[in-house]
């Protein structure tokens, strides 16, 4: 209440502008912000206390295969289910024909954030549809 009083007497202009409703809006915004900051800290605390798995868990899923300009592209999604971020995630795709490896292709993601997903594509000269296609994570490092 002291604040309201001080405001009211500060300048002549404030007496006109600084009505009770104006102050109520200020306090309302302040209260919403306080709740938001508390929720933010609560969220971080919850995640800090409840995250036993500290290793990245990377899963690669192949998607659509398309042909553009004589090159075949295999779209894929890399999902990190772990709770830490992996850097320099290398994904390799291999086309095999029985025992024989026909072609390999790889791509590196700068970052694969925790519990997040990135998309990419691997390029092949041979048609992946007529061979066996395997996608694998070759490695990653800490950011």
């Amino acid at each position, binding site marked *: 209440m002291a*604040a309201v009083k001080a405001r009211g007497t500060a*300048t002549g202009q404030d007496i006109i502008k600084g009505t009770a409703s104006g102050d109520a809006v*200020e306090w309302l915004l*302040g209260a919403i912000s306080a709740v938001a*900051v508390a929720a*933010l800290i609560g969220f*971080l*605390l919850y995640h*800090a206390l409840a995250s036993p798995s500290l290793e990245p868990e990377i899963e690669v899923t192949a998607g659509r295969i398309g042909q553009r300009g004589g090159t075949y592209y295999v779209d894929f999604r890399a999902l990190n289910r772990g709770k830490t971020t992996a850097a320099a995630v290398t994904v390799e795709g291999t086309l095999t024909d029985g025992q024989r490896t026909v072609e390999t292709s790889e791509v590196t993601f700068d970052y694969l*954030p925790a519990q997040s997903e990135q998309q990419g594509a691997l390029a092949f000269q041979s048609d992946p549809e007529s061979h066996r296609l395997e996608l694998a994570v070759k490695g990653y490092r800490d950011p």
Partner: protein
Amino acid sequence: MPEKDDRSGKPERSAIARGLPRAVGGALIFSLPMLMTMELWWLGFYLDRFRLTLLLVITIPLLVFLSRHSGFERTLRLRDDLRDAFIAYGIGILTSLVILVVFGLLTVAMPLDEIAGKVAIQAVPASIGALLGRSQLGGDRSRASRKSEERNYFSELFLMGVGALFLSLNMAPTEEMILISYKMTEWHGIALVLLSILLMHGFVFAMQFKNEPSLPEGTPWWSAFARFTLTGYVLALLISLFILWIFGRTDGLALAPMVMAVIVLGFPAAIGAAAARLIV
């Protein structure tokens, strides 16, 4: 600089001539860090066009507001603020264009779309600088009292928003920003939130010595803390989130890493927000 006696908003020609070099100076000071950051050159061509357009459109009301509270000259009418805002925008675009060409970053071989994108993204901080340059880089002290007269709570918040936007625009595109958030644990995150709030409140506290109508002496600390510090911090976080989204940094990101990225960018944004009220 002599004070103009007419308040009609029609400046003398010499006043504009004096203002332009200051505006260009302001544009350079504010945009050089971004002009010399390579992530921003790349953003110019891969940034989502809808998001880039949105950023450019939002800049207009922001400049109009800044013109009202500092800017080229005394303005009483919205029309004058609009004119000043567009002059600043023009100077921002032109300055960015010239510097990018001189740096050899724009060539005739580039598609027009890429050139436009690169200039557009730089024009935002440059135009803010152009507008502030006129009022901050040099005399005209007599206007100081007028500025605080016209300030109220919401213009203070808006000003904080501009400060947050400007500093986060500088930081958000760099890879370091996102890398820092990956290196931090949630405990670091909590510490950064508390540090941001503490520093912001330091600025708010300093503001009480600046004879601010909305923060007269004798305001209890918790009143200023709730009404300015916390609200300002949440505003800084929201603007950080907005900028991260504009730059496509939130795409595919889960909630937890996104919150961490927002907190990291929220740190400079909070400092920018708090400092803007002291400086402008």
